[in-house]
């Protein structure tokens, strides 16, 4: 009686464990599919002839996710009719110019916060932190008026200048530089080195991880920016990728394959940067939220 009951319990427990494991596997697969399928579908759809895209969905057919006869027609149209080469170059230029200037400007400030003593340090640091917490969208409309008064609307400067100073990047540099023992620079200082020399000789050579993290932050911010370029720029020659995609979707809403192709291109660049460098990016965003 006792052994019988315990035998049943062991059997039931084993079955339960098996069911639990199967359920867990299904949950893991479902979560992965949820996050991956939309972009995968866009990639597959961008390589499929337009009529096939709709045919594979009514009724549903797995060829929607694996094109039988891939074609680059959608990309040809994007680069031909919609001048996407220009759009990609514009976006890359805006993003890279922001990264280059932003790394210098925010790196200098981060260094000052980490190493130097000066009056008003706490207040200035809080200003940098709060400015990092206020989302760009909330400032877009007053910024539009300011940039208009400066006479900069509809130019590369309108796209680049407001994004260069970045409180989060300042914070990343400060956190990183603060880990380096300050005694080294004080010794160098007593030996007569200037702060600029100390920064360039001692700190910059060590700062590759934070440079990558802050660079990715600035790059992704500009590459994904939407509301600001929507209102600050209207000439076609300054169009950036997110706006081009939005225009495409509004003017050619039935051209799904071209929309897929443009979405794929718009995602490919940040993904090709983020996936190999994810360690730095993750460390960067984590230090902003957890160590705080």
């Amino acid at each position, binding site marked *: 009686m006792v052994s019988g009951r315990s035998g049943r319990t062991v059997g039931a427990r084993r079955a339960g464990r098996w069911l639990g494991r199967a359920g867990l596997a299904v949950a893991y697969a479902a*979560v*992965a599919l949820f*996050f*991956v399928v*939309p*972009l995968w*579908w866009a990639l597959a759809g961008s390589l499929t002839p337009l009529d096939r895209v709709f045919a594979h*969905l*009514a*009724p*549903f057919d797995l060829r929607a996710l694996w094109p039988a006869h891939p074609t680059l027609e959608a990309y040809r149209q994007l680069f031909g009719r919609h001048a996407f080469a220009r759009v990609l170059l514009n976006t890359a230029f805006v993003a890279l110019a922001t990264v280059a200037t932003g790394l210098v*400007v*925010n790196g*200098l400030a981060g260094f*000052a*916060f980490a190493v*130097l*003593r*000066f009056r008003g*340090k706490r207040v*200035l640091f809080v*200003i940098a932190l709060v400015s990092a*917490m*206020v*989302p760009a*969208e*909330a*400032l877009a*409309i*007053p*910024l*539009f*008026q*300011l940039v208009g008064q400066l006479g900069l609307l509809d130019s590369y400067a309108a796209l680049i*200048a*407001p994004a260069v*100073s970045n*409180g989060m990047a300042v914070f990343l540099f400060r956190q990183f530089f603060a880990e380096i023992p*300050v*005694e080294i620079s004080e010794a160098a200082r007593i030996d007569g080195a200037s*702060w600029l020399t100390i920064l360039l000789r001692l700190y910059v050579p060590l700062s590759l991880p934070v440079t990558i993290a802050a660079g990715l932050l600035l790059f992704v911010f500009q590459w994904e920016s*939407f*509301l600001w370029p929507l*209102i600050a720029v209207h000439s076609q020659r300054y169009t950036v990728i*997110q706006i081009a*995609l*939005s225009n495409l*979707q509004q003017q050619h809403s039935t051209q799904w394959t071209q929309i897929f192709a443009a979405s794929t291109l718009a*995602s490919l660049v*940040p*993904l090709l*940067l*983020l*996936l190999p460098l994810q360690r730095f990016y*993750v460390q960067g*965003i*984590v230090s902003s*939220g*957890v160590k*705080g």
Partner: protein
Amino acid sequence: MAASPPERRHRQQLRPGSRPGLLRGDERAAYLLLLPAFLGLALFRVYPILAAAAGSLYRQIFSATGPSTVFVGLGNFAVLLHDPVFWHALWVTLKLNVILNPMQVVLALLLALMVDGRSRAMGAYRVLLLVPIGVSLPVATILWRLMLDPNSGFVNALLGFVGLPHQPFYTSSGQALWSIMLIANWKGLSYWMVFVLAGLQSIPGELLEAAAIDGASGLQRLFRVTLPLLRRPLTFVLVADTVINFVMFVPMYLLTRGGPSGSTNVLMYQAYKVGFAFGDMGGALAIVTVLLAIILAVVAVQFRLLEAGRQAW
């Protein structure tokens, strides 16, 4: 991170203040190094906040002599008070945030618990979840617009495949806000998960082992050990998420235009419409001022919470 006492004393001996001349020069160097960044922050971050508040007190008048700006005091806010569209937009904004923000914190926590592990397979699986971080919100919105297309979308095709009726999704006032929350989750959850996961991985394993040896069940360990130690990252995620979601704009602009029948007309989209479609910048800035006040209050509360948490440790 804090310097140990002997180290701190050592630093104090080296304080530039004890060597006259060094302090003044160093202070000047500090301000010079800060100048470029703070010029940008002052001009493009701080000034717009003040300019929004100041500009909300003016109204553009279009007359025969051309456009002019007149001071109206709190007139623009008085207009808002009597505008049912504003009140509805405020209601939709609050509804979105009250549902979405806690949902994202809980789901980000669940995801982090799912992928917390040091095995290679788990590392590869985590990379899959990171894909949406590289996809911009406009791209995410446009892709989900096609995924959720009421006639020929992917999701309805799947629903049809398993014999369920097609859904109207963003084309119905009952489902539009939920469709936007789905998009926000797809785009945002893995980003928020990263913070929670870092918090999880900084919890010493011995702590959980000790609790297990003391006979605590899995759920007890989660609620008694893990969650209290995750207070900081979870607070940060809730606040940062709230601040961003309060000014959510892209899905409303690209997917629903605030509709159907105002069901997704949030304050940020309303401000954009008032400013750029109706040409009423004063009115738009009044709405932006309300949003900025909410955001700054949330940020202030966060500083309080995290500061208090630090002292408690």
